[in-house]
C-alpha cells in the first residue's frame, strides 16, 4: 500500500502530513530530525553526525529513545513522539525534574548534546525509575559528548533516579 498521508503526535499535538515530492509535502526520504527541526521548528534536538552514531538527535518514540536522524518521517505514521520541547510544563514553563537536575548539576558545557542526553535519560527513567549508575551509563552509551560533561550527567540522572518515588 502506497502511503499518501501520515499522522504524527509530537509533544501531544496531532499533525497531518501529506507525503510526496510537491511543495509542502513530506518527501519519503525526509528524516524525522528534518521534519522536527525544519517543519515544526523544534530545534531542541540537534543533528550532528547524521549517521546514528552520536545521539544528539535523540527523541522518544512510543517510549523508546531513538536517533531521529536515522528514522524516516513516513515510518513514524501514527506514532507518539516526545522531544525536549515537550518536557517542561506547557502552561507554567516549569522544567521537568531531569531538566532541573541538569541545571542543578551543571551537567553540560556547550550543551549541544544535552537535549539528546536528557531524552535518552527520560526514556530510561520512565521505564526504570530507580536505575542504577551502571544502568544509566549503559543507557547513555549511545550519546556522545565532546565536552566531557558525562560525569555531571551521570550525577544529574542519578539524582532524579534516587528521588523517584521517594
Amino acid at each position, binding site marked *: *500500500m*502506497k*502511503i499518501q498521508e501520515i499522522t504524527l503526535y509530537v509533544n501531544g499535538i496531532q499533525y497531518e502530513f501529506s*507525503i510526496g*515530492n510537491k511543495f509542502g509535502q513530506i*518527501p*519519503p*526520504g525526509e*528524516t524525522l530530525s528534518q521534519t522536527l527541526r525544519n517543519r515544526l521548528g523544534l530545534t531542541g534536538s540537534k543533528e550532528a553526525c*547524521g*549517521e*546514528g*552514531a552520536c*545521539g544528539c538527535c*535523540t527523541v522518544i518514540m512510543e517510549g*523508546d*529513545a*531513538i*536517533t531521529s536522524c*536515522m*528514522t*524516516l518521517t*513516513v*515510518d513514524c*505514521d501514527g506514532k507518539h513522539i516526545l522531544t525536549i520541547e515537550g518536557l517542561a510544563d506547557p502552561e507554567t514553563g516549569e522544567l521537568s525534574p531531569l531538566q532541573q537536575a541538569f541545571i542543578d548539576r551543571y551537567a553540560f558545557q556547550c550543551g549541544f548534546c544535552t537535549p539528546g542526553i536528557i531524552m*535518552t535519560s527520560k526514556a530510561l527513567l520512565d521505564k526504570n525509575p530507580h536505575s542504577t549508575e551502571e544502568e544509566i551509563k*549503559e*543507557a547513555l*552509551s*549511545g*550519546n556522545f559528548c565532546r565536552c566531557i560533561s558525562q560525569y555531571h550527567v551521570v550525577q544529574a540522572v542519578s539524582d532524579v533516579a534516587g528521588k523517584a518515588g521517594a
Partner: protein
Amino acid sequence: MKSFEYSRAEDFCEASCRAVKGARPIAGGTDLLGELKDDILTDYPGELVDIKRIPGADEIKIENGTLKIGALTKLVKIAENDLIKEKAPILAEAACSVATPLIRNMGTIGGNLCQDVRCWFYRYPHDAGGRLVCSRKGGSTCYAVQGDSRYHSVFGGMKAHTTPCTAKCPAGTDIPAYMEQLRHGNIKGAASIIMQVNPMPMLTSRVCAHFCQEDCNRCANDEGVAIGSVERYVGNYILDNKEFFYQPPVQETGKSTAVVGAGPSGLSAAYFLRKAGNAVTVYDSKKEPGGMLMYAIPNYRLPKDLVRRFTACLEQMGVKFVTETVIGKDVAPEQLEKEFDSVYYATGAWKRPVLGLAGEELTVFGLDFLIEVNEWMQGKVGSEVLVTGGGNVAMDVAITAKRLGAKKVTMACLESENEMPASREEIARAKEEGIVIMPSWGLGKVIEEDGIVKGMELNRRGLIDVAEETQMTSREGVFAGGDATTGPATVIRGIATGHNAARGMNRYLGVTEPGCSGMEHGGERFLTFDPEGILNKKKARQEEIPADERSIEKEDSKSLPEAEALKEAGRCLNCGCYAVNPSDIAPVLVALDAKIVTTNRTIPAEEFCCSHLKVSEMLQPGELVTEIDIAPPEGAVMNYDKFRLRDSVDFAIVSLASVYSTENGKFTGARTVFGGAAPVPYRNQELEGWLIGKPVNEDTAEKAADLAVKNAIPFEKNKYKVIELKTLVKDSVLRMREK
C-alpha cells in the same frame, strides 16, 4: 537522498511482490538510511517497502523446543527477552553488543543479518569527493588490497564478480585462479585451469595481445601482472609434460567429426572434440597444420617448432591430420558431410579484404606479406614501407619489413595509440626498432606523396553466417567458426570460437563433455594471495635479445625461469572483495546452527551467511527473511566475545561466537565462529574437531588459538587482528575451567 516512493506491506506476500518489482524492504532502517544518505551506492531503489508493521513478524516464542524469533524483532527486545536469555543467552549477548542502545531500539534481527559491509572504501560518502566504485559495487578493484586494510579480512577475500583480467580474455581464462594454484606450487592445477578454455597456452602466450594485462588492476598503481609471461611458463610446462596433458580419451563416443582448417580455431575444436571422445580428422590445404600460427606469425614471435610440437600432442590424443587437401577441390563438402557425423569449418580469413581505396592494387596485404615475406622484400631493401593498421599483424609486418632491411617503416592506423589493438609491449618493441607510429590516421587513397590521409572504410566480405550460441550454420550438423565467420580476429578469439563450436557439436551429437578429471585443483573457501608478493611493484620481464641482434628467425624473448614465473604469480592480487561481514548476529546464528526461514524456504544459517559474498546473492528475487529458528543446544556454554575499541558503539574488529560442551574437564562439543575476520562469518571446523577430547587447560588454549588462525593471511596493516583472534579463542577455552 535520492527520491523514492514509499509503501507499507500488510504481510510478507505483499512485501515480496513489491520487492520482485525492485522495491527495497526497509525494517529498522539504520543500515539502509546510511547508504541512502551518503549516496555510496551506484544503484538506488525507486521504492522502499516498509515491513516493520507486518503483524506477528516480531514475536518470540518457543514451539516444540524450537525457539522462533520473528525477523522484525527489534534487537533491544532480543537483548532483554527472558526466553532468549534462558535458551540462547549468546544471542542476547550479541544483540546487546550491537551499536548503541538507541540503534538497538530500531534495528531488527533480520536487518542485522542482511546488513551491508562497513568497509570505509565502500562507505566513502559521495559528497566527500565521489563514491568509490569498488569491486563489491561492480568496479574492478578492492581498494583495501593496496590501501589501508586495517579493518579488512585476515582470511582472504571473496570474488564479487569476474575479474577484469578474465573479462578481457576472449576465452575467459580464469587468470587469478591459475595464479593461485601456482602460488600453492600446484602447476598441474594451474595448467588444467588454463586448458579448460585454451589447449595451447604455449602458443597463445607468445602471440596473444594479452588484453588481460592491460586491464589488470595493478596497472592503476604500479605494473600489471605479467600474465603472458606466466602463461608462457605454464605453456612450456604443459608441453614438457605432454603425456599427461594430452591423453587420448578414456572412452570413445563412436561419433566422427571433421574439422576443416587447422588454424587456432580448428585445432582448438579438434582438441575439445577429441577430449570428449569423438574421432577427429582435421583437413588443411597447407603442408603443415597450424594455419596462421604456422604460416603468418613470424618466427621471432612464435618459433614454428612449438606449433609442430603442439600438433604432435593432438596426434598423440588421436587426432588425424589430412594436409594439402582443399575441401571443395580435392574433397567435395557434400562427401565430407556425408562421411562424418558433424563438420566444423574454420577455414580462416586468408583473403585480402577489399578496402575500396584508389590505388589499392599497389599495396600488399599484410598476411600475404607475412606468408611470402622473404620473396617480397627482395629487391625492396632500402625502400620506405608504409603499413596501415594497428593490430598485431600490422605490427608483425612492420617489424619484419624493418628487420629485412627496409630503410624506413611507418605505421598509420585509425586508432589512437591507446586504442591500438596491438599489445603495449609490441608497440614498445616496434618503436625501439625505429618504426614510426602515426596513430589516429586513416587511409583514403594511396598516394606516394607525404601520405597525409583521411577516412577509411573497412568492409568485411565473404563471411559465413552462423547461430551465435552453437555456431551451427544453416546446414544441419555443419558448424563454422574462427576468422571464416568473424573476419580477421586474434588467435585466442579463434580458440574460443573453436571451443564453442566443439561444445555445440558435442551437444548436437549428444556427447557429454568431460570435466577435468585427474587435474582437480582444490577450491579454496576464500581468495588467497601472497602477502609479500603483492608488495612487489615491478613486474617480471622476459629477457629480450638486444635490438641489434634480433632477426626474423630467432625468438625475440626468452621464457621466464620457473622461480621468476612463480614469483610473478605472487604479484596477482586475486582481486575480489576483502571487506568483513560486520554482523554480530550472523556468527552467533552460525554457531547455534540456526535456520533462517524465508518467504520461500528454510536455509541453514551457515549456508545463508557464509556461502555468498552478499546476502542479496543468497536470496531469490523478492525472497524475504521472515523468522529465525533455533534449537537451543542442551547444556552447552555459549558466549559472544567482541573485540572493539569503544565498547559503547563500535562494530566488531573481531569477534568469536563459541558454543562449548565439556564433561569431566574435557571438551565433548565445540562450535566456533569468527565475526569481523573474513568476508563472511568464519567457522573453524578444524578447530572444532581438534578440541573434542582435549582437556580444558592452558596448553589446549594455546594450541587452539594457534590452530584457529592457521589459515590466516593478514595484510601488512591488519596483522593485529590475528593476535586478537588468538586471544579470543584462548580466553574462550580457558573460561571453560570455571564451568
